[in-house]
């Protein structure tokens, strides 16, 4: 007879345990926001919060894709460049007079295609994701400069509308359409991870790829899928960025992959894979956004102090997050 009834006392402490990192992040984010409000009067404007979303919509979408990849224990360094390439290709095609719909289609296809190819190389040839996606990063950035050495403005009507349409009160508080798209992506991703086989396989592979293989899960297919998803998210992010800036520039989003990875990790996803939530990623993006807003509001830091303070705030945040995590373990 085997009885392993978990003591009732353990149930309450176990249930939220896996949510503790996310909850801690949420609390700390609110504290950070509180600091802003107490320091700068204009910080309490609702529009400030909306702006954080408006300004980070594309980052959020890309980070959602990265969450999939990191959950499997991989990494995708190509996202920043794919974002730039998507924006660049869109701008280039629009400049050539191609109508908006085919441009959108092409732009949305390039990212996933590249992601798919990278996923195949990673899976079939057993090459480390870091190096494959680094090559992908070189490739996509190379395509940007190859298409044009200088930035290309977008004047297309559809793009302009998407860029300048204000949802909400156009003279009061509003968000951009990109924010709605970003939320839609987040919702779809969260659903996929929680309720579909693909999503559960992602977690399984991140937990232990070899076990997942032996359990008869489609490891290869899933792995290729996550890089494709990340490519798709980067492509959507690229479109949102082109809405945001109404142009394609060869050097835009340089180093974005690091911001994205940072956001995902701050959101509580473990880099070795297998644990984390899309909601955490949303929080991670917001943390970066709020830190930046704080610094702009301060407005007294010079260039190097800006970097030092960003580093310092990041440190304080992660340290607290970690300490809370330990306490509740």
């Amino acid at each position: 007879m085997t009885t392993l009834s978990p003591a009732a006392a353990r149930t309450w402490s176990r249930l939220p345990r896996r949510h503790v990192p996310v909850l801690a992040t949420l609390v700390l984010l609110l504290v950070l926001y509180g600091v802003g409000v107490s320091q700068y009067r204009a910080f309490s404007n609702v529009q400030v919060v909306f702006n954080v979303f408006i300004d980070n919509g594309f980052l959020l979408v890309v980070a959602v894709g990265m969450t999939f990849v990191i959950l499997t224990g991989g990494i995708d360094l190509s996202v920043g460049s794919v974002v730039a390439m998507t924006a660049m290709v869109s701008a280039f095609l629009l400049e050539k007079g191609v109508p908006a719909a085919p441009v959108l289609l092409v732009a949305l296809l390039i990212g996933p295609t590249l992601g798919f190819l990278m996923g195949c190389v990673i899976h079939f040839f057993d090459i480390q994701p870091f190096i494959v996606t680094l090559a992908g990063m070189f490739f996509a950035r190379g395509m940007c400069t190859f298409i044009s050495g200088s930035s290309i403005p977008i004047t297309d009507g559809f793009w302009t509308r998407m860029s300048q349409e204000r949802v909400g009160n156009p003279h009061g508080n509003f968000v951009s359409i990109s924010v709605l798209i970003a939320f839609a992506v987040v919702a779809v991703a969260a659903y996929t991870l929680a309720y579909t086989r693909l999503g559960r396989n992602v977690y399984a592979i991140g937990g232990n790829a070899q076990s997942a293989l032996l359990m008869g899960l489609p490891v290869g297919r899933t792995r290729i899928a996550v890089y494709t998803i990340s490519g798709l998210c980067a492509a959507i992010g690229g479109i949102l960025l082109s809405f945001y800036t109404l142009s394609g520039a060869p050097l835009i989003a340089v180093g974005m992959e690091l911001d994205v990875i940072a956001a995902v990790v701050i959101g509580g996803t473990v880099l070795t894979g297998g644990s984390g939530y899309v909601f955490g990623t949303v929080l991670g993006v917001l943390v970066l956004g709020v830190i930046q807003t704080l610094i702009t509001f301060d407005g007294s830091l010079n260039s190097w102090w800006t970097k030092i303070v960003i580093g310092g705030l990041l440190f304080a945040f992660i340290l607290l997050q970690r300490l809370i995590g330990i306490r509740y373990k």
Partner: protein
Amino acid sequence: MTNHQASYRALTAHRLFWPVVVLVVMLAANTVYRPSFLSVQMRDGHLYGSLIDILRLSAPLILVALGMTLVIATGGIDLSVGSLCAISGAIACLHISRQPDQNSFGAVLTALALGLGVALVLGAWNGVLVAVIGIQPIIATLILMVAGRGLAQLITEGQILTINSDPYKAIGVGHLLTLPLAIFLAAAAALLIAAATRRTALGLLIESVGGNARASRLAGIRSARITLLVYVISAACAALAGFMMTANVSSADGNAAGLWVELDAILAVVIGGTSLVGGRFSLGGTILGALLIQTLTTTVYAMNISPQTSLLFKAVVVIAVCLIQAPGFRARFTRRTTPIATQAAVVEQPKEQVRA
């Protein structure tokens, strides 16, 4: 199976065979493009030529990548090395620039000691965040990557600090026995690290921590100390590289010095055959990887590939290197010609022998 075949097989099965092939192919391509590429002349008592340039310029990358190898072997990663290069270089240059006699040996030595000292402290900081507080390495070192750039600029006040010190300059462009001094420094560091890891048990313990951290703890390894140590070593290597970079141009540029060198270093480590997951590491492979990357950069300049396309070129080469090196790729490629039975002997063991 003839003797000849067997030795060929042993050779191609060696982990570093294929990177070497790519390196040779690249040099050959350069030579075809410009036959004088390989020529080395004697000029002012030292050797002069593109090959020498490659060696000298790869010295800092080799240094950074060596430190990175150890960090990666423990299953970590160090993104802060670029900023550490900038900081240590800036500190050294700042100290020298304040001296009345910039050529004084003593002043240069103090400058180096200062730069190195600060780097060691920052390396320990990284180590503490990772090993003691338990923050994920990529994030822990990202903090210093961001803030460190700011520190470096704070030190130089955002300007490019030019110095005029021959002893310091020698670190970057000096010569010894007709060869650049930087090569000797990198080689010395490589030997030192090799001795420290392979002559002692450090290498074993590092590989053990990287291979299975939980098991290592239960085997009584003080993994926190080991982890701390590798971040410190990595910082020290970065500092030395920072001295070289700044000495090379006799000036400290807080913004540009060592920018993105962490990516190159990680790439070198990975090309060298060390897995980012941690565990077994190969210092020789890393050095080869660094040489390969520098050769690639030099090739872009020497063949005058336009800057617009140079990244595409780089992408192609990087992918070629990994593909040709990947056992999975070669297995698929050779399957048609080699009977399957002998294949297992050629194909190198991946971490877990499981067919996907």
